[in-house]
């Protein structure tokens, strides 16, 4: 199809409304599909003596009944899980404008790289003489991440963003302790992601919240009021969770450093600034990156990711060990920094996720990564302009890779809430934006198209959002009508907890009052 007036092609590859989901029957669980005595397993011919369980395991340890798993043929097993995948939206199916999550396309070449036998079949305890390729990859990746963020040294151990945050806070703690200081507070903005305050607590600090001003940026005057010599540091993401660049970052950094605090950069939004500016140049001391956002490691339905942490020179000697290093003779090995805080992962981090990110960076190169940021910001900016008349834009100023719209006008006019917009968008063949986050925006719709969506997909997404805004309240509330299930009863799930098949039909958790708090809030 082409637009008759402009001649521009309008068919979009990012819309999944043609996906052939067949019917809306329930899929039985594995346990209901089981038939006693059926099995799919097969094993190597070992030639070993066939000692019995009784000969091998002392009687007081030996189980009397086998652990029930499931009993299913390989054919039924494959059909079951394949049908389940037909009940699942994904980036490979269509656009996923989930703000803060950077749901970009995950290049398949990275999947191939991570499944190479020479990477996948390496035991993590194997000595350096057997793992030179892995060590080189890790050292190179550390160097690249330092150069992208403007930092001096990095650890690849943290397995996700939140783990990176806690690692960063422990580094902060170790550094203050070495200066002979006992500090108690960490400042975070009211727009911060929930993992920030949760990590602050686990790092042994109290959270102090700094409000945002009318621009949607950190209120610098309010920040100054909170700064004293009890402040260990501040955690910021820049651009922030409204998608806005913290323009006063240099002043903020100066003020925090003045009281002896450190600046922590939550790298969830790094996609916006690749090759444009660097946290190190802004004055940050500690940076975590979400390789599962910025560097295209697929989210896997919730993980795994990787959350490396990079630091400025004065924090390098505290990094978790062991760290991969390049020796003077060009070979690779391990080294534990002098004042290391210790391991934060059982091994060396999420290795195969790191390999994916490395191959993504190689494919893009410095020039390609800058292009990523440019296209990500262009797409978000275009969409904000396009939706301006249709949705409220509470902070209508130049955004970066994402922006926050609001359904406040629709709610007032027809009772259509952000949640209804989200559910209607599912019907339109798109994933929903992040809703009710950041917490400082009412009826928030946080939209991050990412750079891999084409202009045609953006038009289709905008048109869908416009149709929704033109909808009646009743229609919006009935959505989604085309998905494998309709809206689910979340309150009931919490009230009558059924966390396993064996807990069916119903057990009660006893403490039901707490769950009336179960809100539709914060979904990302």
């Amino acid at each position, binding site marked *: 199809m082409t637009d008759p007036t402009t001649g521009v092609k309008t068919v979009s590859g990012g819309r999944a409304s043609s996906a052939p989901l067949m019917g*809306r029957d329930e*899929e039985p*669980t594995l346990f209901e599909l089981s038939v006693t005595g059926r099995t799919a*397993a097969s094993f190597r011919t070992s030639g*070993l003596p066939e000692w019995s369980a009784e000969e091998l*395991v*002392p009687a007081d*340890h030996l189980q009397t009944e086998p*652990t029930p798993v499931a009993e299913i043929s*390989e054919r039924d097993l494959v059909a079951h*899980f394949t049908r389940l995948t037909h009940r*699942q*939206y*994904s980036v*490979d199916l269509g656009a996923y404008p*989930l703000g803060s999550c950077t749901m970009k396309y995950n290049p398949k*070449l990275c999947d191939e790289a991570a499944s190479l036998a020479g990477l996948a*079949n*390496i*035991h993590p305890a194997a000595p350096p003489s057997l793992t030179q*390729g892995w060590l080189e990859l890790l050292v190179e990746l550390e160097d690249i991440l330092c150069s992208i963020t403007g930092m001096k040294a990095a650890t690849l151990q943290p397995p996700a963003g939140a783990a990176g*945050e*806690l690692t960063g806070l422990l580094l902060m*703690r170790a550094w203050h302790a070495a200066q002979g200081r006992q500090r108690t507070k960490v400042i975070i903005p009211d727009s911060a992601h929930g993992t920030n305050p949760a990590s602050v607590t686990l790092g042994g600090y109290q*959270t102090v919240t700094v409000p945002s001003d009318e621009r949607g940026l950190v209120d610098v005057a309010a920040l100054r009021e909170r700064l004293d010599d009890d402040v260990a540091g501040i955690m910021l993401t820049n651009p922030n969770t409204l998608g806005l*660049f913290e323009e006063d*970052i*240099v002043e903020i950094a100066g003020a925090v450093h003045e009281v002896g605090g450190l600046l922590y950069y939550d790298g969830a939004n790094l996609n916006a600034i690749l090759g444009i*500016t660097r946290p190190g*140049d802004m004055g940050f001391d500690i940076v975590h990156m*979400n390789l599962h956002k910025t560097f295209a490691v697929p*989210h896997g*339905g919730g993980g*795994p990711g990787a959350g490396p942490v990079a630091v400025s020179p004065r924090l390098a000697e505290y990094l*978790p060990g062991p760290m991969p290093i390049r020796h003077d003779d060009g070979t690779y090995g391990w080294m534990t920094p002098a004042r290391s805080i210790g391991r*934060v*992962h*059982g*091994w*060396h981090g*999420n290795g195969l*996720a790191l390999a994916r990110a490395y*191959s993504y960076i*190689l*494919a893009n*190169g410095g020039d390609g990564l800058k292009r*990523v940021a440019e296209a990500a910001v262009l797409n978000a*900016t275009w969409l904000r*302009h396009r939706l301006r008349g249709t949705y409220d834009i509470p902070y209508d100023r*130049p955004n970066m890779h994402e922006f926050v719209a609001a359904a406040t006008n629709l709610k007032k006019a027809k009772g259509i809430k952000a949640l209804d917009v989200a*559910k209607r968008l599912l019907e339109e063949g798109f994933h*929903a934006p*992040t809703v009710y986050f950041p917490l400082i925006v009412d009826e928030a719709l946080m939209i991050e198209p990412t*750079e891999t969506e*084409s*202009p045609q997909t953006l038009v289709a997404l905008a048109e869908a959002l416009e149709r929704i805004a033109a909808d009646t309240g009743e229609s919006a509330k009935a959505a*989604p009508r085309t*998905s494998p299930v309709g809206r689910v009863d979340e309150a009931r799930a919490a009230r009558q907890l059924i*966390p396993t098949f064996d807990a*069916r039909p119903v057990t009660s958790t006893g403490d039901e009052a707490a769950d009336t708090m179960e809100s539709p809030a914060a979904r990302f």
Partner: protein
Amino acid sequence: MGHFVPHTDAEIAEMLAFVGLSSLDELFEAVPAALRLAGGLDLAPGLSEPDVAVEMERLADANVAVGRDLVCFAGGGAYDHEIPSVVRRVAYRSEYVTAYTPYQPEVSQGVLQTLFEYQTLIARLTGLPIANASLYDGATACVEAVNLAVAATGNQRVLVSRGVNPQWREVVRTYAVGTGHEIEEIALEDGLTAWSSVSGSAGAVLVQYPNYLGCLEDLAEARRVADATGALLLVAFDPVAAGLVRSPGSYGADVVVGEGQPFGTPLGFGGPYLGLFACKQEHVRRLPGRLVGETVDTEGRRAYVTTLRTREQDIRREKASSNVCTNQTLIAVCCTIQLAWLGTAGLREMALRCARATRYTREAVLAIDGVGPLASAPVLREFAISLPNGMSGETVVERMADEGFLAGIPLGAEYGGGLLIAATERRTRTEIDAYAAALEKVVR
């Protein structure tokens, strides 16, 4: 460069015009000029797909791989188990691989139901009623278990057996600096936790079963000691053992954690792996991470959704039960498919074959002159040996690599040195005989 950005130059120009700008640079006007990177990133230019493949293969070929180059007798929390083709073919379908966390349940039933099945399986293996939707790995699952126990008991004294994987213990110590927990270790005696040395009150007792040296600990005694100190009993459990031994839940463990890598995840140089976490019903409000529950949709159809979310960081913020957000869902999917493929009989068969291979290897290795057992307690899939004439485990591993084996994991000074050896269901009599012959040569 920019293989994955679809925009044509004409489209970029058109989009810029629509937003009233004349260059891509102007998009970044909010970034102060002094902060702008003048020349862009100091990185090599982008490579084509085939060129990336060549580079990744070069790195992969610079490793000495298990299977291709080496027969694996190393374990220590990372095992060379069979991964059937169904795991790769089904778990790596792009709907599983490229979805986000199931925040929109109506279009996420695939991941949600798979996680519900996973939780059911982990509950059954551990013998506890509640299992979460995964944590990062065995080590960080121990940290979460310790945090739960301290919150539940209000006692920050944490007793950790030296039979717990030393790297996991180190991770527990690292995180305890933030929370202020006091971590004390309980020594081993002939490979088993010396329970009689424990006194005073505590918030948590953490023991591994079978332990790092492969030995089967006395969980009934662990439970008694936990009760005597007022602590919760936390058991780091090898899920493969669930094919043969009684579950930790049957001994009254409050929390069972573990490393799920043995079910469907390659060695991968240590990750991504799978943190298992299960607990008693009474601790469900303190459960870290996501939990999937069954419910119904508006038309009464069975449906699944993440639940009891008021525990989690996005709602509870600084009072959350944990900071975990992104977890290891895809690895949990692999684990679910692998367990379903094994089935009830297959899980038992797998564990039995591990135990047989381990007994056979142990007997063959202990027959070598100068090699002795580090512990006499019964083992399942792993055992520890002492080496002759003060030879180090590191030396043995290096020399055995030349013979085509990853011989095991060198044991640290706290165990008196030696080597930790694992034999899974993948090991054959021919491989083990060759291994023992090579080891005899190497230690001579």
